[in-house]
């Protein structure tokens, strides 16, 4: 954690499993991290690493057959006022979920009901959180939030149905809906995977502006290392349900420590320079019903040894830089977990 961090969300030793017919999928195992107020925190990883599940667990959005087995999620609406989200009753939780912690999900077409206008989505959200007395009042407010989300022609668009909008505009509609409850934390789960790159650039610019303008804390979930580099203050790299490395964005990119982080960065193409040979990671991600023992990356790791059959703790190897790998056992300044 950085020195002057004022925590807004703390995740402690989270375990999530999915009880499927094929067996118990151990999707998240012992994930802990802290998000500081006002920062952009990234969860990055490949398909199935558990980044989305973790983000959903922040407001207990895990549905059957999934279950939070263990661990705590603490939310600090004000410094020094912890609320334990994991033990909150459903009524209290509803005020926080979508209210103080709002989401932008990956697919804006799935986030919007095709039978209702954009304005209605915003009005309904505001009404549900008691911010307006009627849907009609919410409808009038909606224009303001569409404007904030830089929707072109908001007075007209407020009356549009989702099918009348392009992918980028739908996502702006979703962002406006999320903003309408004046959240403190915005969780953006792959917000631009469904849109083209020029629109992605526009949406990311918007998120940056909103973050500073509205004093938001942004949690960005992505698989795109480019977006991490562009947007984030701190990053957690996830692999097969665990955080393998966490640190300030510059440290992660300039001196990645975990073999997985290094391999991942080598597999990412920087379009501004010519790459003659791309390095790939042999093998595929493990099946989380029967995950590998110990470090979950060890079957694909070029440095694996006997000790990797034991689960590595998180070694602190520098100012706010943690890595869960036995290679750093000797140079560690501290150990967590």
């Amino acid at each position, binding site marked *: 954690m950085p020195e002057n961090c004022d925590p807004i969300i703390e995740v402690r030793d989270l375990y999530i499993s999915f009880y499927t017919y094929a067996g118990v999928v151990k999707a998240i195992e012992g994930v802990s991290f802290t998000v500081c107020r006002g920062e952009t925190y990234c969860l990055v990883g*490949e*398909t199935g690493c558990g980044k989305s599940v973790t983000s959903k667990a922040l407001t207990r959005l895990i549905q059957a057959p999934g279950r939070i087995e263990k661990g705590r999620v603490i939310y600090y609406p004000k410094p020094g006022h912890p609320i334990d989200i994991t033990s909150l009753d459903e009524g209290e939780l509803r005020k926080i979920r979508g209210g103080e912690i709002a989401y932008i999900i990956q697919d804006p077409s799935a986030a919007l009901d095709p039978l209702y206008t954009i304005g209605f989505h915003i009005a309904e959200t505001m009404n549900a959180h008691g911010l307006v007395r009627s849907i009609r009042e919410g409808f009038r407010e909606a224009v303001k939030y569409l404007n904030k989300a830089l929707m*072109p022609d908001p007075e007209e668009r407020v009356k549009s149905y989702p099918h009348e909008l*392009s992918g*980028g*505009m739908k996502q702006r509609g979703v962002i406006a809906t999320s903003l309408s409850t004046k959240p403190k934390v915005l969780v953006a789960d792959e917000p631009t995977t469904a849109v*083209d*790159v*020029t*629109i*992605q*650039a*526009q949406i*990311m*610019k918007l998120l940056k502006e909103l973050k500073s303008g509205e004093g938001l804390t942004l949690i960005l979930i992505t*698989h*795109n*290392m*480019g*977006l*991490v*580099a*562009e947007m984030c203050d701190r990053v957690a790299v996830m692999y097969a349900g665990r955080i393998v490395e966490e640190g300030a*964005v*510059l440290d992660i*990119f300039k001196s990645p420590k975990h073999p997985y982080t290094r*391999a*991942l*960065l*080598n*597999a*990412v*193409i*920087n*379009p*501004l320079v*010519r*790459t003659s*040979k*791309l*390095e*790939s*990671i*042999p093998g*595929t*991600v493990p099946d989380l019903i029967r995950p590998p023992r110990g470090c979950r990356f060890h079957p694909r790791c070029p440095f694996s040894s006997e000790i990797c059959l034991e689960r590595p703790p998180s070694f602190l190897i520098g100012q706010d830089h943690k890595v869960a790998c036995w290679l750093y056992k000797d140079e560690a300044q501290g150990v967590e977990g």
Partner: protein
Amino acid sequence: MSENSSRARESVKRMFPGEQPLVEVLNLKKYFPVRGLIFTRGYVKAVDGVSFSIPKSKTLGLVGESGSGKTTVGRLILRLIEPTGGSIYFDGRDILKLSGRGLKAFRRRAQIVFQDPYMSLNPRMTVFDIVYEPLRVHGIKVENPQEYVLKLLYQVGLNETHLFRYPHEFSGGQRQRIAIARALALNPEFMVLDEPTSMLDVSVQAQILNLLKEIQAKYNLTFLFISHDLGVVRYMSDYMAVMYLGKIVEIGPSDKVFENPAHPYTKALLSAIPIPDPEVARTRSRLTIKGEPPSPLNPPRGCRFHPRCPFYMEKCGLEEPPLIEVEKGHWSACWLHV
């Protein structure tokens, strides 16, 4: 052939100096009708007059955002769909004039790998059947089919244990390997790769891209590599073309296009990609464009990019710019170069 079109063909042939073209595309058009209740309401001009060549044993990358027409171009070149106009030459022969046996012979030489390996493999066929199918279709007899298929599987990093399994037993990356093995089965000269890695994770993507480069070098293949991912195109391509709303706006050696983009749309596209380097990402100057691509049903007059272009001039809305050679072998369709 009229004098005009033979001159056009000559210029396409010499588009990239020092290269021998395998594929030449001239003024290719594909309009999809949009049907109303009774009459056709209009046409989506998915591809609207593109000309380019693909040099032998090289890769031409085709980039563009969704709806730019890049996939349609790939399918037209293989004659999986019929063009509305224009001509396509493969190894000097007009493939639009081919039919029957001639067309079949062409199809042996040109293959495709599709984007979605979950849809391009028949779930009821084993890997052996999938990879052997092209030989069956073309009536080619080999002495030992199993050995033949196995050799192909080794090529793409699979082995004998995979031979009689079904597609559902494989991950996305492995499925794409099977699709590549199938495309290799007939020893083609040319392959269209239509976003072959867009469904894969980065670590697996790197495996597949390296595999494609390997087989290209080994078999001397010519690739048309279609992708929306500029990084992937840079890694794979010797030459690249940028499409916008059915038109090629810029084409040239990929290093030149990346390092010295000429068309405002290319510049905007390049500055929109996130760069995996925090120092560069936060300090570079960017050209952001407003708005979204207009509907291809009713594209803007003149240069199709003009409503979003920061360098818009009056001429742009009136007249369409031709491809202009800005440096040797590097072409851009913009009035700024005149």
